[in-house]
């Protein structure tokens, strides 16, 4: 079903009756919307959302009659078939409606997973786009951060010999509330950052600490733990630095970065102190 490309734009040259007829034909043709292949996303996909929120994540649907403005989009002509692109993010998705319209759920899942991987690479590993945070994490999603926070909580909880539930709850609450508060901190300092983008970023920057916690769980030597935690701590801070610092006034850089570093230090202490 790729009739979306036959649907004309709302051109003023076309008479209204023709337009309405075309739309009716289009929706009639695609009205028998196929029931989705009934395959729930197998890996814990997790999306707004992305909101996530997000998404969360994803090239916007179709449609031909879309104007490149920030006005909410014009109603789509064909009913989007199942499994279509998971929303969120992905400004680049405008270009190829026919491909995303008919994709099954599994494709959506794969696309979302690949988005998580690409976001991770952008944030945590060196790459040329790091200096331009607006572009770097354009396709923010909250699924990666969710995975990482839960994983960190689970690892810490596993390493703890007593009070496992409290450790998990504390770790999760600390990381989630910490991300929100750090974002608010930047906003209150007069910085220009988008709330969910920043949450997403701080979540992805937890990846090095996740790796560190995993290593610490496997090797119980104190010295190894301290070294590993220090290395991963600096890696996390390095990952978060360009995004946070470019969001605020240069004179307030330290004020924005210091709490981030503090949070990572406290998580590092949690990792070392757990026995």
């Amino acid at each position, binding site marked *: 079903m790729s009739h979306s490309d036959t649907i004309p734009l709302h051109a003023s040259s076309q008479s209204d009756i023709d337009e309405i007829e075309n739309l009716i034909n289009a929706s009639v043709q695609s009205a028998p919307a196929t029931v989705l292949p009934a395959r729930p996303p197998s890996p814990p996909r997790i999306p707004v959302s992305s909101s996530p929120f997000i998404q969360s994540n994803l090239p916007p649907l179709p449609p031909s009659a879309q104007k490149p403005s920030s006005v909410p989009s*014009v109603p789509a002509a064909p009913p989007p078939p199942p499994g279509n692109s998971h929303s969120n993010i992905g400004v680049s998705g405008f270009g190829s409606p026919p491909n995303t319209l008919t994709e099954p759920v599994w494709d959506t899942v794969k696309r979302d997973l690949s988005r998580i991987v690409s976001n991770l690479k952008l944030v945590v590993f060196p790459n040329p786009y790091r200096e331009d945070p607006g572009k770097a994490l354009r396709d923010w999603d909250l699924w990666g951060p969710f995975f990482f926070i839960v994983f960190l909580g689970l690892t810490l909880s596993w390493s703890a010999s007593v009070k496992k539930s409290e450790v998990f709850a504390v770790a999760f609450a600390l990381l989630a509330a910490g991300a929100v508060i750090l974002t608010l901190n930047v906003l209150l300092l007069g910085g220009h950052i988008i709330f969910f983008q920043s949450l997403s970023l701080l979540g992805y920057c937890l990846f090095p600490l996740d790796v560190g916690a995993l290593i610490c769980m496997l090797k119980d030597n104190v010295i190894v733990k301290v070294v590993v935690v220090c290395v991963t701590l600096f890696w996390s801070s390095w990952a978060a630095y360009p995004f946070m610092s470019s969001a605020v006034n240069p004179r307030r850089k330290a004020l924005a970065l210091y709490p981030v570093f503090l949070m990572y230090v406290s998580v590092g202490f949690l990792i070392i102190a757990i026995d």
Partner: protein
Amino acid sequence: MDLTQPPGENYANPRTCFFHVLFKAAALAFYILSALFIDNFVIIFVVTVLLAALDFWVVKNVSGRILVGLRWWNEINDLGESVWKFESLEQESLARLNKKDSWLFWWTLYLTAVAWVVLGIFSLIRFQADYCLIIGVCLTLSVANIIGFTKCRKDAKKQIQKFASQTIANRVSSTIQSAFSVV
């Protein structure tokens, strides 16, 4: 959806409806029952939140589109600003949507949020802060979907009205033009 079957008699998309309800019910059921049988908070947390997140994804991406023809997402435009986008079907398709489907969609959405609030009240009464954490996360996900879809529906109505008034204006002007050209 078939045009041959009179709408309102059966669910038009039974499998989608099933999945729409499945994860919500599973999250609620697991949370309620596990407190009785499982002693490990971590497992309860992870499984419940996982089911709630799966439900969020399914509702946002699959059942929202199929059952009510609505879709919402967030984009960051070239200027670096965050823009909320809403998308909906045309009026003819909207009118042709199965009433039972959309009834199920909206009611389960609202009822789930209410159920989480009630469970949250129970946790608060018992002073169980860690269970409140689970409730908080699940409630956030439910409310996010509710807000997103409600805004999307309002936006769809606005679009339809705009489209209708535009069409009428165009018809009127073209009628006047043809009237003048005849004269």
